[in-house]
């Protein structure tokens, strides 16, 4: 404490005539969860910003090491809780690579995986847009975007049984086929979506207040974004068209026709536009999946890896034994290490998975996209106003379940 007067509020860490060290968060409403930023400020201008993370550390990586391969997906979904399906997909793809069954996953399962991941990307962007809007004083946008999200969560609930963490994507395929009437619901959403996006755009895109708050705020160059490991829309808003779905296609993404939206400004407004366009592209992928969806099984046919259908357990002894074995001791995965990445809503989401041949993962390391996106705040914030810091945090779209894990 080296100030000349007593601090007036507990948030003030240090104070002198021209400089103040202020703690923003971890309970600040605009920090999207539990982020603390230790700010050095001179007047209204931020001179240093040091994000302090770890308030939501739940040891998911350690927990995953102590669960069976088949169970670990459950906790891994809880890392990025806004798009659990992307996390699950990435982990499952890594395990399938270790098992050597990547190309044996039925086509229908892959298509449904793509469909649900794109839906959850839109749902995740809806939360980002709603909360980003609230941060900037645009309250009504929240209800418009959560209306779309609500419809998507209904679809996810229909497929997997839960709205947030369905644990629907499983090793070797899916936990059951889509229910009847799913595609009709999807079609209704696809039909309604363009109008909703139009409303979102009308509310914000040409809104002079919105532009005042976001244009030229939190600017990043392509060079900076790459050297800080920034990903997803934050990277594409600087003009780098890197998308894992195109660079390292997985689950049959090469079959779908979609654009990778980019902008060159690299500011908060550019990120906003890129994400809006991304939502539309994702919905177009969903429509393509809906049209192309093939019939057939949704699971790789190997009872040593995939649980048999529930209805066969009562009538088949083998099915009962396989079910019992998978539930009681899990599956064994051949030893090896693998890095698998997918394009999550926040950029390259990667899993470095190591197996030693046992029924539990030896190590599950996440490449948390949010962590690297948030870290660039140290570079981005100095020289800006405190009020703009809220815009920057919002536009980087960190999810603290993923930052802290």
């Amino acid at each position: 404490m080296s100030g000349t007067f007593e601090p007036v509020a507990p948030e003030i860490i240090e104070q002198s005539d021209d400089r103040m060290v202020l703690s923003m968060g971890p309970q600040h409403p605009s920090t999207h969860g539990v982020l603390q930023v230790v700010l050095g400020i001179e007047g209204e201008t931020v001179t240093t910003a040091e994000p302090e993370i770890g308030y939501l550390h739940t040891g998911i990586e350690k927990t995953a090491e102590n669960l069976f391969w088949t169970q670990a997906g459950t906790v891994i979904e809880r890392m990025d809780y806004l798009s659990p399906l992307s996390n699950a997909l990435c982990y499952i793809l890594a395990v399938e690579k270790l098992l050597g069954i990547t190309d044996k996953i039925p086509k229908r399962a892959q298509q449904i995986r793509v469909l649900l991941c794109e839906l959850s990307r839109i749902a995740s962007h809806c939360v980002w847009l709603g909360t980003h809007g609230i941060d900037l004083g645009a309250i009504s946008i929240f209800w418009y975007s959560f209306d779309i999200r609500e419809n998507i969560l209904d679809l996810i609930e229909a497929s997997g049984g839960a709205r947030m963490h369905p644990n629907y994507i499983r090793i070797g395929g899916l936990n059951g086929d889509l229910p009847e009437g799913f595609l009709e619901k999807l079609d209704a959403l696809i039909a309604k979506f363009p109008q909703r996006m139009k409303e979102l755009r009308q509310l914000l895109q040409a809104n002079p207040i919105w532009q005042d708050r976001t244009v030229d705020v939190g600017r990043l160059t392509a060079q900076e974004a790459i050297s800080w490991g920034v990903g997803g829309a934050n990277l594409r808003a600087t003009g780098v068209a890197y998308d894992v779905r195109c660079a390292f296609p997985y689950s049959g993404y090469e079959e779908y026709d979609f654009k990778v939206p980019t902008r060159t400004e690299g500011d908060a407004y550019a990120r906003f536009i890129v994400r809006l366009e991304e939502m539309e592209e994702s919905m177009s992928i969903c429509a393509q999946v809906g049209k192309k969806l093939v019939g057939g099984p949704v699971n790789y046919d190997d009872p040593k890896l995939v649980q048999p259908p529930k209805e066969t357990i009562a009538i088949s002894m083998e099915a009962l034994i396989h079910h019992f074995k998978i539930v009681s001791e899990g599956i064994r995965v051949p030893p090896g290490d693998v890095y698998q990445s997918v394009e999550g809503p926040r950029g390259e989401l990667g899993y470095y998975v190591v197996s030693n041949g046992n029924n539990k993962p030896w190590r599950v390391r996440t490449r948390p996209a949010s962590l690297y996106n948030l870290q660039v705040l140290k570079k981005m914030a100095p020289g800006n106003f405190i009020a703009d810091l809220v815009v920057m945090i919002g536009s980087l779209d960190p999810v603290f379940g993923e930052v802290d894990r």
Partner: protein
Amino acid sequence: MPSSQVPPLGSTAIDPTSARPPIDDAEIIRITPDQLRATLQDFKSQGMTMLLDIGGVDYLARSPRFDVVYHLLALPLGAASIAEVGKPRRVRVLVGVEADATNVPTIVDLWPNADWAEREIYDLFGITFEGHPDMRRIQMPDDWEGYPLRKDYAPRGPAAERTPRPAFANKSNVPAGTPPAAAVSEALQREIAQARKGLDT
């Protein structure tokens, strides 16, 4: 502080990374900590512009005990279209770290995003990065003891740190360590004696 509750190993491969040929599209290189900076500098000048991630793995029974894993990506700077990005080169650098020399040079000056990644490995594995400007814990509280992602760290943490379980959560209402009642003990002795007799005849 490592707990006495060491999780059972039951492993089949002590060094899984060398158990089979690479199964993903990354080039894999294994080096020692003293080669690290030169190697990564070399990769950077070859156009590996992005440091994707740094991860740690504890192999416990292997020598070197730890692996620090660097994932690099060659993302061209001015790539404004999907075709220009193409399929970028990916490199995985595995750095073996001995249990008694947990010290690795930092690469914060090469890629600034190594900052938090290295702090996280320090926090969870206890591997220090020489030359790092701010080597503090990042996820765990500053006064935490032990390194949670090490394999000899019990999943629920050191026993002393654990919240005691409420009485109703225990299977029996008899407190642990209570000797069995005399009648129970005698019955048990009788049973054992009878079993012995059965074995002898």
